């Protein structure tokens, strides 16, 4: 479960950023997240939808304890992200679209590294690695340097890295960005599996197709504020335009 209450995040603008923004720079801060509240339930997929620069990544980074909120609270599996960050980190898996991997390690070494960081017991690790490598067909690449792998393969390694410790909460930040259709589909399937296993899943995207395929709950974020927060079925039922895309644009424009 993720509970977000009145979450705010302000960034101090650098001199360069102030120059670029010009007069609108105001007091020299940028409010990336401006008082949002939502809840992600176990066994449901929560989609955070928004255009580029809307505040999706900042919101997910706040949930994942990478950033500290300026105001508001976030509870992940009952733990406060500011007061108990290590407890939160033990329970989350975080996957970004930009496959952040160590090129000079092999998938085997990389996965073992993250398992060790999460204190996964040796026997549990071996079982889980075997299961995930088989599921994602990674065995034949397990001892090859990551730099030699294709983008799709790297993303699969990223997935294993994210869930090797079997987290309760999985956070995906635009997980299909830059992937081909087949790789993107495997991620969609994986998210469905997580839901089936009762995990809490939150993912950010700007691809409407993914939203329709996966969402149980949906929030639309624009300029750091939520324009919609509710169930996906309610969103579809209340549509005033013909397509999801048009409806999304309508929400953003009216915000």
């Amino acid at each position, binding site marked *: 479960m993720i509970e977000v209450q009145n979450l705010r995040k302000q960034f101090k603008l650098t001199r*360069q950023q102030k120059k670029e923004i010009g007069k609108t720079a105001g007091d020299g801060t940028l409010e990336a997240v401006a008082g949002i509240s939502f809840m992600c339930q176990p066994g449901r997929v929560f989609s955070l939808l928004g255009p580029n620069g809307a505040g999706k990544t900042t919101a997910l*980074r706040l949930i994942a*304890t990478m950033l*500290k909120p300026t105001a508001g609270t976030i509870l992940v599996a009952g733990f406060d992200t500011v007061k108990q960050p*290590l407890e939160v980190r033990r329970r989350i898996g975080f996957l970004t679209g930009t496959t*952040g991997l*160590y090129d000079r390690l092999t998938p085997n070494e990389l996965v073992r*590294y*993250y398992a060790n960081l999460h204190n996964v017991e040796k026997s549990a690790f071996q079982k889980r690695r075997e299961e995930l490598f088989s599921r994602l067909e990674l065995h034949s690449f397990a001892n090859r340097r990551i730099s030699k792998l294709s983008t799709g393969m790297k993303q699969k390694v990223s997935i294993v890295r994210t869930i090797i410790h079997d987290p309760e909460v999985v956070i995906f930040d635009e997980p299909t960005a830059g992937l081909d259709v087949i790789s993107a589909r495997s991620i969609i399937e994986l998210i469905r599996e997580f839901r089936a296993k009762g995990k809490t899943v939150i993912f950010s995207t700007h691809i409407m197709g993914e939203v329709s395929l996966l969402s149980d709950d949906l929030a639309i974020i624009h300029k750091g504020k939520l324009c919609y927060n509710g169930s996906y079925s309610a969103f579809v039922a209340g549509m005033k335009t013909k397509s999801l895309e048009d409806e999304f644009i309508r929400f953003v424009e009216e915000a």
Partner: protein
Amino acid sequence: MSGLFTIFKKELIDTLRDRRTIIAMVVVPLLIFPLIIGVTTKISISQSQKAQAKTLRVALIGNADARFKERLAARADIHLIANVPEDSARSFIQTDRLDAAFVFMEDFAQQLQNLRAGEIKFYFKSTDDENITKRRLQEIVEKFEEQLLSERFRQLRLDESAIDAVQLTEIDIASVKEKLGKTIGGFLPYIFVIFCFLGSMYPAIDLAAGEKERGTIETLLTAPVSGLEILLGKFGVVVLTGIGSALISIAGLYVGIRQAGEIPPEILDVILGILEVKSILMLLSLLLPLTIFFAGLLLTLSIFAKTFKEAQSIITPVNIIVILPVAIGLIPGITLNTTTAMIPILNVSLATKEIIAGTIETGLLIEVYVSLIILAGLSLLVSSKLFLREDVIFRG
């Protein structure tokens, strides 16, 4: 603590697989000294042998003394060139048609007869052949002068020792180790400090700016380890590679000296004695806090950069700042005292000289340690405050 060890282990494996690090940390320090010592010794010996064996073309101009001419003519390695006008001597040597010229003054014989000094002008070019031409001919002139003096003493019926009013017996109490220590000791800090810095540089850039550029820092920040554990894990690897690089450079120096072959055995023994375990351990004890300081400085600068390239451009000028105190340590007259012992890097440079010469004072050495430990502590403190600050990690 297990998180720290896990990070350290992974970063070490990752770093040792980085080609740039291996080149800067192992290949360059290991090969540079055997190469420099080997190549320069070989070239210098070969040039010197050539200059020694070369037949010198020498002109005798003016009314040359017959005894001097005879001495030159008797030498197989000297070819006398006749009919060179005095005003052409300079240009002939300049254009390599002559190696040297002796111009006898008109009154040379008269002056000798009057028991005065006869003047000979000696033209040569000191920039050629490490001055060997000058030395070879000067030797002949000295023998000629000895001959003339002996003749004078005989003529005056004087004992040759009569002109020696004082007999100076020089007793240098400085041991060969001390003398070499003060010279080689000035050179060693160059190796230590520079390779220590270079060895730390690439890992520090890769483990901080590189991690940011790859986006791996984000995944690391979501793992259940504290920021301090992440920093210390990386810190450990940067310190290890810095010290490793300095030690490898000493090994390279050892191999280079061993291979040189032309160093007199007594000097070789002293040099190898300098590289003994005790001296190395003392130098290492200076290096450890210095490398911790470098690691803190480099990791802090590196984490500010958005990319590997940006970090490189920030850190490269720091290299010069590091070399400067080492260079100051080489200036004659700059010695280890209560003031210089407190100046970072310069104190390592000066203390190294004293350690190698075996003349280090315990009080000053303690002062150097205190200064370095304070500096290392400050560096660690500052980097722990700045490293992993969200406005630094997610800068821009």
